[in-house]
């Protein structure tokens, strides 16, 4: 019961945050230098008529927001217009229908472009995160248990190095090494122009394309997870209840699995969740190096093309992922820590 209220409160916060982000995201792109109309219409040879037509097409002829005379002493926005006719309300209305506008560059709906990109990113990030979470936790646990031995020293050094390697540099090195010595494909998601006899062959091709970017990403994140896990486990191992567990005669494996792991996972959950939310965007470097058609590459390209609707959509998507990841972390946390279930902190 208390747990339910806890969950509802978290959900409420998440929704509020999303509303806030939507508003901020809308105005951010109207406040930034270079108004969205200009950005879309860069060709000076366009006639005024053509420009106006484009403005109308993207809805940029409408007032940004109405002024709400009584509520707004500064009289910002345009007064005397129907609020439903302003860009803001149209934007929100479209959002509710799942529409994020049309890309200036491709003229395709932003939502479907982002959808494809997100799927590719999730494929890459998902695989890499699963590997680094599993190996990071195991390595951290072992290093902490064997702290100050050669095992620990090796794992620690390797993780520090992995953590401090510049992502794009590691990507390029692996790209050269992988393509030269292993003959792995280096660009994109599928071999261009290839005909596949059945879906299995296509999946295999996709898998081969995934290897290098996933490896790069795994190495980069693994180091961080291992280091965090190691220090958390070290803290946990110095707790009194670990001494109790040893005194009970439990085996090393039992102590690590039943007593250390569960408690050490609590801080890990938070870090992984935060990371997950941000890596949706944080894959930019890797996606650029490997031309992986994910969200990062889409953002990178959109910035270059001043494709505001695309950027706006991508920012919203990232914000929503971060908020969702946090919500999931809260839920997991409440599952792992009984003190939260009972409404204590």
């Amino acid at each position, binding site marked *: 019961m208390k747990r339910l209220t806890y969950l509802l409160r978290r959900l409420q916060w998440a929704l509020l945050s999303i509303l806030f982000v939507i508003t901020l995201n809308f105005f951010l792109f109207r406040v930034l230098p270079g108004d969205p109309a200009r950005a879309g219409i860069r060709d000076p040879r366009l006639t005024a008529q053509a420009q106006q037509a484009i403005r109308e097409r993207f809805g940029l002829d409408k007032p940004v927001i109405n002024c709400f005379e009584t509520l707004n002493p500064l009289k910002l926005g345009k007064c005397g217009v129907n609020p439903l006719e302003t860009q803001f309300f149209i934007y929100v209305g479209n959002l509710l229908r799942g529409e994020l506008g049309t890309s200036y560059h491709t003229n395709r709906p932003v939502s479907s472009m982002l959808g494809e990109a997100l799927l590719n990113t999730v494929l890459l990030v998902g695989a890499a995160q699963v590997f680094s979470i599993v190996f990071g936790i195991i390595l951290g646990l072992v290093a902490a248990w064997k702290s100050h031995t050669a095992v620990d020293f090796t794992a620690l050094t390797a993780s520090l190095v992995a953590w401090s390697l510049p992502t794009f540099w590691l990507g390029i090195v692996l790209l050269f090494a992988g393509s030269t010595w292993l003959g792995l494909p280096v660009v994109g998601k599928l071999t261009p122009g290839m005909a596949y006899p059945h879906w299995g062959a296509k999946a295999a091709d996709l898998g081969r394309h995934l290897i290098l970017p996933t490896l790069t990403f795994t190495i980069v994140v693994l180091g961080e997870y291992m280091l965090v896990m190691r220090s958390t486990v070290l803290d946990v191992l110095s707790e009194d209840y670990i001494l*109790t567990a040893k005194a009970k005669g439990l085996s090393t494996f039992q102590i690590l699995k039943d007593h250390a792991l569960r*408690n050490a996972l609590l801080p890990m959950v938070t870090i992984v969740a935060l990371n997950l939310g941000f890596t949706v965007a944080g894959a930019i470097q890797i996606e650029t190096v490997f031309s992986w058609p994910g969200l990062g590459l889409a953002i990178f390209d959109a910035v270059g093309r001043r494709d505001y609707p695309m950027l706006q959509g991508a920012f919203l998507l990232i914000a929503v992922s971060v908020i969702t990841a946090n919500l999931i972390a809260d839920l997991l946390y409440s599952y792992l820590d009984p003190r939260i279930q009972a409404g204590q902190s």
Partner: protein
Amino acid sequence: MKPVTGQKTLLSVRHLSVGYESEGKLLPAVEDVHFDLREGEVLGLVGESGCGKTTLMLSLLRLLPVAGRITRGEVRFGGQDLLDLSETEMSQVRWRDIAMIFQGAMNALNPVLPVEQQISEAIRRHDASVSAAQATRRVEELLEMVGITANRKDQYPFQFSGGMRQRVMIAMALACRPQVLIADEPTTALDVMIQAQILELLLELRERLGLAVILVTHDLGVVAEICDTVLVMYGGMTAEYSDVDRVYNHAVHPYTQNLLKAFPDLSQPNARLISIPGYPPRLDALPSGCRFSPRCPAAFERCHQETPGLYTVEEGHTARCFLVEGKV
């Protein structure tokens, strides 16, 4: 009204010395300690904070922190020296033969596991033939035995008060029917009323189960009331060791005498130990000679130069003090 203790010696500690490694040096936290524990005996271990009580107890179970080293001695139990056992053999002795309640037991229970799991894992670790259902029944019995209703077994440690948590800890310590129970300041963090209840419970269970107990405490009143023998430690060494009557009425070591003077009213078990002027020695700056000599009212020339041996006052009464030397 002390229960008659059996004659068989369960645990016999000889020349036990323990050090902590620190900056390449070995700090002598416990040195040359001897004691015996017979069946059903309650041994009181007293001394100021930092005199090595916890270190001594942890070394019996070989649970010292990583910096700790047992440098010398024997811990004989059941015909073998526990210090010679392999780690696996030692882990079988833990809890099944010798269980321990820790100082600061507030955090001795895992916060994210229900108490049943924490008790039953000990039972099943030491007897693989016990089924999950049998273990649950045993946990219920144990909880009832320490005055907790069995249906609280699914609760988590934070749902129990301090005193209740210590009861859970006691139930857990008795889970494998050990022969020896070490209780390291089991009541320190509790308020006075609860302290008395917990001690009473410990005593009652001890009598019922015929346990031998080592009770580490600051409280000389408690010792006088419930212990059969007393080991007084100072600066990691035995100051005086004997049965409780002789320690209280014929103490020979100036440190023991001072402890008792600072604690005159034995009918008031709740009064606290008042410390003697001066400070206990630091392990990295030990005085030469007897470790108590800088604070000792009876110290003479020799005390500052030589470390006294452990002298026998009379059968079953030893003290580490030159005043005793040659009295036998």
